[in-house]
């Protein structure tokens, strides 16, 4: 019986095998093991099979030189290359000018000669492995194949269409550089390099995503950064094995110290000046192709409440604004909860006149303050989401509906009291002061948690949640740096750029809670004084 079963199983296995088409992983492994041959026709055929007669594959066959002449081919992907450049510079050189200088091509191998004399391209790379050639072609390189050569020459001829450098959409300011990152990694790199010109600024290239092969680069300033941090970033990125990376959020989720925390442990920004400042402070930046959002690590909670503009304005002004930003962050989380707790449990804390006003306004409202707050906050969340998703054309009608109909008419319809509308609107405005969108998301979620706690047990309900959130925050680390530094663990000199923004000449050291190789930022004598 067992014997029969075993036979049946073997029979099924044998039958199933040849029918199954190969998976992408198998195909990739296959192309990785495949190399170019010395036969031009066969090489072209190999690449044609690799791309499967894809419509954007361009194969241009021609001959190099006169006597001897070498059959050659130029292979490109349509739309990824600068067509004008590759025609006028590359092909014309190879087809016309090599013919004129026939003798010089002879002594060496044809490839070396082309490499050193004929290819007027800045970047040329020799490549034999088929899979790497495929990825390079998809990235906008042109492949030059010559008959009789086992090696192909990859010339960098990238010329795809992309968005130009524009003002960053998600982080605006008054006195800030207007340039923001784009979707193209090489442009982003140049935006950083233009701000940090020391050659010790290093970019390390890697590719993540087995199908997308997305270029990702680690940036740091050698000599300031702690090499252990770079090694840690490298290690965490190398560990990622995924099919595609379309935004830096993929990487963020996979290198975070505590991926389940709603608090962002990696900073993302589309401002090159922010990244440049982070790099000079000894942090590491991670650039991802295809997104303007660059990651920097490590980061602390207070730093996320700092806008880059804080550092460009007068220190008193910056401190003043920053204080309000801290308060706003707290209010964005606690505002509705404290209001509900006060009107439900601790009426005596509200000034007497206001108590009467609130009570009178709540007269016609059928719900308890908690449900009212829950309803209004939900409406606000929906409005906000709608504001992000809606097609720009219907924007104006949306504003009218949101502001007028919901705001004014909920009160008139008796669904919410005016004081609640004020509190929720105040919360909304407070949350817009947050310069880091990801951090704002945490306050939006916690707002509801606090609201429930405040509705159940008043201020001490909020107190218990504050304790739990506080413990969570104290336990977080971003690449080894405690999340609440310099407040906890307390680092007094670190408070110079957190509790207040000290004038620039006082910020002599780089943030003291970071582990960095060179801590001194500037000379002590920078304070302007009469000579």
């Amino acid at each position, binding site marked *: 019986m067992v014997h029969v079963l075993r036979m049946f199983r073997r029979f099924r296995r044998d039958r199933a095998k040849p029918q199954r088409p190969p998976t992408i992983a198998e195909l990739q492994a296959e192309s990785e093991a495949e190399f170019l041959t010395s036969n031009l026709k066969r090489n072209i055929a190999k690449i044609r099979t690799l791309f499967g007669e894809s419509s954007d594959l361009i194969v241009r066959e021609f001959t190099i030189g006169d006597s001897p002449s070498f059959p050659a081919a130029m292979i490109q992907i349509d739309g990824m290359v600068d067509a004008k450049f590759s025609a006028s510079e590359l092909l014309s050189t190879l087809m016309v000018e090599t013919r004129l200088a026939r003798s010089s091509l002879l002594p060496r191998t044809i490839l070396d000669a082309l490499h050193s004399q004929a290819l007027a391209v800045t970047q040329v790379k020799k490549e034999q492995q088929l899979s790497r050639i495929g990825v390079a072609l998809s990235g906008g390189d042109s492949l030059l194949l010559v008959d009789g050569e086992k090696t192909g020459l990859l010339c960098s001829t990238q010329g795809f269409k992309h968005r130009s450098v524009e003002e960053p959409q998600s982080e605006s300011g008054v006195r800030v550089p207007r340039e923001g990152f784009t979707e193209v990694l090489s442009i982003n790199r140049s935006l950083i390099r233009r701000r940090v010109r020391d050659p010790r600024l290093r970019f390390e290239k890697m590719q993540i995503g087995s199908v997308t092969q997305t270029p990702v680069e680690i940036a740091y300033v050698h000599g300031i950064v702690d090499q252990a941090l770079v090694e840690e970033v490298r290690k965490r990125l190398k560990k990622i094995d995924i099919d595609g990376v379309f935004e830096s959020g993929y990487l963020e989720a996979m290198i975070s110290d505590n991926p389940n925390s709603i608090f962002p442990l990696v900073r993302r920004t589309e401002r090159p000046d922010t990244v440049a400042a982070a790099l000079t402070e000894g942090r590491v930046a991670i650039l991802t192709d295809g997104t303007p959002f660059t990651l920097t690590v490590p980061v602390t909670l207070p730093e996320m409440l700092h806008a880059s503009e804080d550092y460009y304005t007068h220190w008193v002004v910056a401190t003043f604004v920053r204080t309000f930003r801290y308060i706003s962050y707290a209010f964005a989380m606690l505002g509705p909860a404290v209001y509900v707790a006060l009107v439900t*449990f601790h009426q005596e804390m509200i000034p007497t006149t206001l108590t009467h006003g609130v009570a009178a306004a709540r007269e016609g409202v059928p719900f308890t303050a908690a449900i009212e707050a829950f309803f209004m906050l939900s409406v606000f969340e929906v409005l906000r989401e709608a504001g992000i998703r809606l097609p720009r054309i219907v924007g104006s009608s949306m504003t009218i509906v949101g502001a007028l109909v919901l705001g004014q008419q909920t009160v008139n319809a008796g669904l919410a009291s005016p004081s609640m509308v004020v509190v929720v609107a105040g919360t909304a405005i407070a949350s817009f002061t947050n310069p880091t969108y990801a951090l704002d998301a945490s306050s939006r979620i916690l707002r509801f948690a606090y609201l429930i706690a405040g509705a159940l047990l*008043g201020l*001490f309900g909020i107190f*218990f949640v504050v*304790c739990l959130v506080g413990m969570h925050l*104290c336990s977080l680390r971003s690449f080894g740096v405690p999340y609440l530094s310099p407040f906890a*663990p307390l680092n007094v000199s670190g408070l110079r750029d957190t509790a207040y923004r000290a004038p620039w000449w006082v910020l002599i050291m780089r943030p003291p809670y970071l582990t960095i190789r060179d801590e001194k930022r500037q000379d002590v004598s920078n304070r302007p004084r009469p000579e």
Partner: protein
Amino acid sequence: MVISVLLVITAYDPVRQDAWISALITAVGGPLITWLIMTLAVQFPGETFMEYAPRLLGKVLGPIVSVLLLLFLMERGTFLLRTFAGMLTLSVYTQTPIIVFMVLTSLVVAVGVRHGIEVVGRLGDIFTPIYLVVTAVVLAASVPLWDTQWVRPIMARGVLPVIIGAVTPTAYFVEKLYLLILAPVVPDVKRARTVATWAAFAASVIMLLFAICVLFTFGPFEAPRFSLPGYYLARIASLGDLYERLDIIPLLAWSLTMVVHLSVIAYALTKGTGQLLGIRDHRSLAFPLASIGIPVAIMSVADFAQFREFVHPSIMGVYMLGLVFPVFLIILVVALIRKAPARPSARAKGGK
């Protein structure tokens, strides 16, 4: 720690207007007790009491004393839990059953214990400035209500009531025995001893300030009657129109430090229990111990009347200074005489 002390500083009735002198005595006695406790820890750097007790006191007596220490911490922790929950039900939530606050507090504390002492310490870093600022505001706000005549005559009934009045507040410092379990957390125990002693002194100074403010504000006849003199101080104090009827804010600020304090005791209890039972990951004990703590807390004190009885020098003083502390002193003397038998592993390494 301070809040539990400020509850009792004026509790001993006969001391009346001389409570502040009692507080002065505490400012000497409290740090001294802390210093002595840390002195035992200094003898065994890098080890908790559970680890060196068998070597110091023998295979039988060592674990027994360890269990006693844990029971003592359990009693202290649950007493604090009961006090805290009682404070809330007495002041703000008069309608809410006390068990609600016990459960919530022990839940928060257990989460804190699971996060570890480092997290609790950092929480303390954040809460302490809040505590200090709020306390300073409350004390300052009481100044307009002062009547400095209340403290006279000084020591009208002689020295004895003053000394007896200092017994309970001083006795509170015996709970710092938890330091015997926490000490190995820091690399330099000797420095930790200095820090802990100064911290105890600072706590006593705050207590002294409270005693003075309460006395000057309420007078020697009213003050001893309050269960929560600090809270009543916050309640009647006001800063013009700016600060009025906001007594819950100081209460919140004090509760923050209360949670930290309770977490520290609970952490010591959990870690000690784990070591005694040989459990590698003591964090798994956090929630079970918290759930044991709740019924114990309910049993510890029935109501605030009993609480006041309990903190009377004749009970609290005898219990802490007459029973627990002498046992500790004997252990300390034994440790000093036996010259701290070294760790077996350390001795083996030294032999090579």
